[in-house]
């Protein structure tokens, strides 16, 4: 039997509810319905009075979670889509994120954000917001790329005392499968070598890890061995692992699915340029989505975000220096 990425998210929540009575779930349609993506399927029945359908009030949902966290609970809030967290923006960045610094009282909430593009979802059901939230002091931003990480990082995230933005990629939900969920895993804050190599380093996260690995595989026949680093969490960001990789390869490409201005890839390039300049044999490169809203039509969408082809192109360019 195999486990999908979303199975892992469901299983993690099940385990959390079972083992930690401080945990409860709050979100739109997560009760009887099991959530828009079925990430909470069956949990309302299994855990009466621990899983709540909320009104369509993202601001109040996060406000409620922060209050509950002050009282010692560990709410997990599901945004129906990451895009709708724009309504909860104030409570996330100003209420939750500032609380520990201001008062000394930490806010252990976890906000699940179904993120990223899928064909036909359009400008308001496809967004990636990790680069927005990571800018704010006080937030931890997780971006699991594998089934095991989807499971373990949700559990580890809920265990953290600070507010966690958990970005789960919708494209991976059912497409990504694993045999089972391995028990050993890296701690939050540590990146992973998703594919070892020696000629160039691709730093990616979430769904883009898989596109990067595909691109690397395509360059293999030409003799190129590309290393892919999976960030796992974009804040904190594991610079050590990236620098160690760049030290081996001398070349860096950062790939993200977000909009091109700023964001995770700019942070990665900046960190490496500042701290590993001497390691670089070529200008570090970025590849992001295009600078427009995410288009609805699958043909447009497919060339809006990075693809194995465009990653290969960027790598060939990088390897030419």
């Amino acid at each position, binding site marked *: 039997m195999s486990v999908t990425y979303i199975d892992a998210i469901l299983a993690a929540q099940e385990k959390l509810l079972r083992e930690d009575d401080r945990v409860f779930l709050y979100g739109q349609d997560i009760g009887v*319905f099991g959530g828009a993506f079925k990430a909470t399927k069956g949990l309302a029945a299994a855990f009466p009075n621990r899983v709540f359908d909320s009104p*369509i009030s993202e601001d109040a949902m996060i406000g409620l979670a922060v209050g509950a966290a002050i009282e010692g609970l560990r709410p997990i809030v599901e945004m129906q889509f990451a895009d709708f967290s724009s*309504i909860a923006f104030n409570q996330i960045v100003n209420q939750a994120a500032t609380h520990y610094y201001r008062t000394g009282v930490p806010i252990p909430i976890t906000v699940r954000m179904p993120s990223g593009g899928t064909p*036909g979802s359009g400008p*308001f059901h496809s967004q990636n917001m990790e680069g927005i939230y990571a800018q704010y002091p006080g937030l931890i931003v997780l971006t699991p790329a594998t089934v095991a990480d989807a499971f373990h990082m949700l559990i580890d995230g809920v265990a953290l005392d600070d507010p966690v933005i958990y970005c789960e990629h919708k494209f991976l939900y059912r497409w990504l499968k694993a045999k089972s969920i391995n028990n050993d895993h890296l701690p939050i804050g540590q990146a992973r070598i998703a594919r070892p190599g020696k000629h160039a380093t691709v730093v990616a996260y979430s769904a883009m890890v898989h596109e990067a690995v595909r691109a690397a595989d395509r360059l293999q026949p030409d003799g190129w061995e590309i290393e892919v680093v999976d960030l796992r969490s974009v804040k904190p960001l594991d610079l050590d692992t990236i620098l160690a990789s760049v030290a081996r390869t001398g070349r860096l490409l950062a790939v993200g699915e977000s909009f091109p201005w700023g964001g995770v890839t700019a942070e990665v390039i900046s960190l490496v340029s500042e701290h590993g300049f001497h390691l670089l044999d070529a200008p570090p490169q970025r590849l992001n989505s295009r*600078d*427009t809203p995410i288009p609805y039509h*699958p*043909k*447009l969408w497919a060339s809006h975000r990075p693809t194995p082809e465009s990653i290969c192109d960027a790598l060939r360019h990088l390897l030419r220096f």
Partner: protein
Amino acid sequence: MRLQPRPASLYAPSVPTLDLPAASEKSVTDRDFLRSAFQSMLLARILENKLSSLYKAGKIVGGVYLGRGQESVSAALGTALIRGTDVFSPLIRDQAGRTAFGESLLDCTRTYLGSVLGPMRGRDGNVHRGRPLEGVPAMISHLGAQIALVAGMLFAKRLKGQLQGVVGATCVGDGATSTGAFHEALNLIGVEKLPLVIVVANNQFAYSTPNNRQFACGDLIERARGYGLGGWSVDGTDLFACASVMREAVRRAREGGGPQMVVAHLLRLVGHGEHDDAFYVPDACRNDHYGRDCIDVAIPQLVANGHVTTDEIHAWQHQFAADVQRAVAQAQQEATPDPYREDWTAISTRFPISQ
């Protein structure tokens, strides 16, 4: 919780109370209105049935959200508005209102099928389509966000001295009433005294969430007073009732009576989208008064009142089915957007300087 339709006057203290003629009385004098509204309902139903089949056949990428069961409300509103003068910002269940307000079938089929010739050129899909410069804003997904936008269009018309005789209207569901955007915008239209008609289609569910997890008052119209809006509560399954309430609400807004809120009671007769089988809707809801299909309710009423004949209805059905077929066929053979020719820019300004 079973709602009884309530006299609107109870909730409309800020508007001079006017005794409405009973729906059936008034409607007989409004043959044209009812015929026209009904045609929009029928065309919308036929079009949406087609969209549903296309979706199930895998011909549509992305979601399909239908208005089945809400056609009376939506068509009555759309028919009361004047294209070219008014602003109408439809929401996800407003195919009938769009049709009544004059949307072409091709705008719909092209958008759903991703034709580059559609108003959204493949950049945005399904119910998001609009023609803002023709008074039909293109909605974003975030619920409640369109109300303030319509308010802004009216506000601008006032500043330009072009507000006389103009109405703006938009629809939301019961779920959207829980958004901060809904509140801020309704409060603003009250303060600015804009001629906006906000229609709340309370179809008892927001996706899967029932009313009792969405709000804690009896009838959402109880909120009108707190915003200084005129208030109307109507049986959304009854075309005649919808027609007379919408016309009256629109008329008052148009004639300077200030913003109006209409709450229509009904049931969503489909899933949230075509991917959803709505297993969570209890049979009790389906079987009660508001579980009626508004088209089934309208036909005998219209026939009995001599507004239409059964033959006419059949003829319309045939004609609309053919029209829909043609619009689908045309959209299907049109080009889809080409990423290599796409103008990948989100701003209209062309800066001379490198960015």
